């Protein structure tokens, strides 16, 4: 039978102490929306550390040049938080589209990144925003870039690493957007998702472009080849078509031989158009939506 112990720490320090004691048999969970469905067996004989009572993990704040939030913030809060909409629009957009209302009320940003499902909607926005995650294991505390955090899941970071917080650098005149394609308009796992952040120059051109794609590989990743196509361009339909072309090339490469390829290589075009349209909307909105105004 699947017997295990549950720890209910109230502070990060307590959580780390529990983890240290249990060693490799510790698993952190927060909302449990992934773990309860898929992973419940993995903990057999070990210690489940429930982080939902750790208040230190539930803040959303602007600190100097960063938007910082605890890993225990639920998607419902992100989706309704004015500060996130103001400073990290694409993350708020993704949060609003994850699962159902019930899921969003439980699921946390930290859990979404730690679980690192290929289609995790929280990951591409954080990547596009150049976010870093505060990873803690034992005495080690360090801010890890998203790309590293996600890829390291297969390597050294897990198990036993606590994701405590995320920080998003605030850039001048920057906007961001997230778009997703599921098999229906809501309550659907992404078949593809995209997030982008750009800074705009005075003449409306894009610079410092970040574009991340999910659900096309084992983890979301930055599509640097397509970012280059975007640099220096204004957000108009011709750009959408070019980005679409670049993304199709990526999909062709990543999904070669997969049954889903013919569909996804077509559908990614729709997402490219949605993304450019939505970024354009954010630019028109006066740069509101990410970072600070000049």
């Amino acid at each position, binding site marked *: *039978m699947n017997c295990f112990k549950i720890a209910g720490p109230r502070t990060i320090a307590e959580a780390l102490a529990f983890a240290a004691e249990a060693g490799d048999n510790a698993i952190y969970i927060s909302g449990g929306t992934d773990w309860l469905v898929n992973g419940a067996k993995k903990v057999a004989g070990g210690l489940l550390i429930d982080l939902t009572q750790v208040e230190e993990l539930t803040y959303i704040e602007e600190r100097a040049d960063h938007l910082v939030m605890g890993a225990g913030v639920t998607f419902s809060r992100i989706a309704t938080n004015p500060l996130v909409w103001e400073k990290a629009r694409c993350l708020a957009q993704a949060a609003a589209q994850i699962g159902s209302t019930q899921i969003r009320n439980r699921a946390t940003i930290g859990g979404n990144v730690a679980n690192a499902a290929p289609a995790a909607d929280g990951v591409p926005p954080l990547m596009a925003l150049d976010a870093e995650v505060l990873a803690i294991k034992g005495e080690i505390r360090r801010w890890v870039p998203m790309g590293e955090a996600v890829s390291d899941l297969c390597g050294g970071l897990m198990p036993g690493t606590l994701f405590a917080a995320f920080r998003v650098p605030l850039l001048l005149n920057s906007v961001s957007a997230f778009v997703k*394609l599921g*098999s*229906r*308009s*809501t*309550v*659907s*796992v992404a078949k593809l998702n995209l997030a982008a952040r750009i800074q705009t120059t005075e003449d409306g051109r894009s610079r410092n472009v970040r574009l991340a794609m999910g659900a096309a590989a084992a983890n979301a990743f930055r599509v640097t080849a397509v970012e280059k196509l975007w640099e220096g361009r204004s957000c108009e339909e011709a750009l959408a078509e070019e980005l679409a072309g670049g993304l199709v090339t990526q999909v062709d490469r990543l999904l070669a031989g997969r*049954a889903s390829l*013919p*569909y996804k*290589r*077509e*559908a990614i*075009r*729709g*997402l490219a*158009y949605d993304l450019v349209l939505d970024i354009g909307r954010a630019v028109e909105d006066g740069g509101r939506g990410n970072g600070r105004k000049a």
Partner: protein
Amino acid sequence: MDEKLKYVGARLPLHDAAAKVIGRIRYTGDLGFPGMLHAKLVFSPFPHARIARLDISRALAVPGVVAVFSHLNTPSIAYNSQVWFAGQETVEDERLFSSTVRYVGDRVAAVVAQTLVAAEVAAKLVDVEYELLPAVIAAQDAASFAEKQLQVGDVEVGFSMSRLIVEDVVETPKIHHAAMENHVCIAVPDPNGKITVYAPCQIIVSVRLIVAKVLGLALNKVRIVQAAVGGSFGGKQEVILEPLCAYMAKVTDRPVKVELDRAASITSTRTRTRTIGKVRTGVDEKGHIMAREVDLLVDTGAYTSNGIVISMAMGKKLFRLYRIPNQSYRARIVRTNTTVAGACRGYGSPQIHAVTEINLDHVARKLDMDPVELRLKNLVHPHDCDLTGGPSLGNVGIIECLRLGAAEFNWTAKRALEKGTGRFRRGSGMACAVHGNGYFGSPYPDFTSMTLRMLEDGGLLLTAGLHELGCGTITTMRQIIAEVMEVDPETIEAPDGDTQTSPFDSGCQASRTTFVCGACAMKAAESLKALLRQEASIILNCNPDQVLIKDGEVWSGIGTGQHYPYAAMACLIQQKNERELIVTETYKSQANPGSYGANFVEVEVDTFTGMVRVTEVVAVYDLGKAINPMLVEGQIHGAVQMGIGMAICEEITFDPATGRAKQEGFAKYHLINAPDMPPVKVLLIEKGEEHGPFGAKSIGEVAIVPTAAAVVNAINHALDTNLTVLPLTPERVLAGLHPAQFSGVAK
């Protein structure tokens, strides 16, 4: 007559709506009995295999396990899960367990334990060695074991007179009923050898028949109690868990509960029948249908189930919607190593209408004729004959449905709208449908009996084989009786059926409940009223025809002014006449008119992603008379939701290599949810049907029939395509737009 009706036509809520909403209703899953055991089933992981070895020793060793059942220790009596009356001709090929499993999800064993956890743990410890056998997953690869044919006129002659012949192959998938309540039942043995089964089902007499057969018990030693139903849609019409549950209760001499999870409800119960329909329609230059030929491949899954019956049901619908002088229908029924098909809302009607209505739009395109106009030229008229010799179509209202719906939808203007040339395209489509009202005219008996009595306080008690599936059966019966007896429906108690006390009823199937059971309720109420008049006349010292019954009171009509409320009169009759006010009536159905409907649908299609959004639905139905318009509208809204799902997203598909269903839960099996539901405008044609109670006909099943075809027609209109493989998922839509790129992938 309508102005005089007080309760029929009233918008009363479901009798148990409040209890459901506040969570007080007790579903079978909520019930428990002292000493009750829990069963967990073990299902086959292979589509076709012989069980070479089955070792239960590890399972039995789990603390709390009481017994493990398999083909080694259960009766091998063959039965068919859809038999509902004694002597019904059928193919019996299902058993509690068999040494050969025939699909992924077939029953292999059942562990019974004191706790559900113990049963679950032990179920994983049943060691089975399988010897794999060749499996047939695709219907096209299977050989047919039965055929059904119907024919009118001579199709070759009809085709030779046609100016245009349009052929299509339309495929409809297996579909999960998706009732909120999974399959569940509890069997309770008693010391005298009787078994009571609590079952959320659709036909208590069917459950009784099959349980008695498998257990070798007399019918009166098997008691089936209709439990609260958390949705069925046909999924609980066939007898699936009850015989096994009853057998395990009998052997262990303890109450046993079996409750499936969602994955098992999807893969191990029943599905909508998959059909592949080849259809050819010939028309003259004006659009009159001269001939039609339908050749249907019917995939009934691993066991025969209702494969033959539903094939006949589908065929009959073809002859009752349009005036087609020459028409032939042939169904070839095949078994595959996939989940068993069975009843599902509409009983084949949504499938056969998808085949013909999608084809008819293709005909309209080829003729360059408006699809509404094409249909109006061919639709049946009131009191048309069924050319196959079936019962009269009755007071048909389909032409009114079409005209009213087209006007409300603004059909002509919408069809003329620009579809767009960019990423998003708009289109509108429509479809017509017919469904039945019971079994009259078929080989199956269609009658019901009911006992109605008036109690000492004037309240009424109806004892009948009722099955409240959530459609409002009980509220409907109460409204009908209330109207006749002139009492508040709240004073009528009409509990669900119980084979120990209820008279016989053929069950909640075949769209017969309102039309047949409702007619019986009306007959019983009229009979009780006559009895009341008769007995009251003794008290009032007058002739029965001098007794006036009005508004729940009994008056002497001979000018004495004497009058009594029902309660007082019922007491007097008890005391003085020593008579109970009780009647039992049997009603035999005398007609089987069509219920008709038309749906008008607008869609928006994203040609980049293939996503379809249904933006508007106008749904018009000819149902004779709505006993309760609010419940009717509820039926239609739900049906439209299911119909859109059938058109664009719902399907159970099987991996051709492993035979496993690709959709084993709601993460993969998507229904249309609230944000994706369009506004649905419901319109009703109420012009009365002769034999229906207060003119009423069926609605619950016909409501879903036109929707899927209408949505597909709208999509084809938007895209100028002829997509015919349902559901039109984003993948299939894009494959339709870019066939070269998708060759061989998303069929």
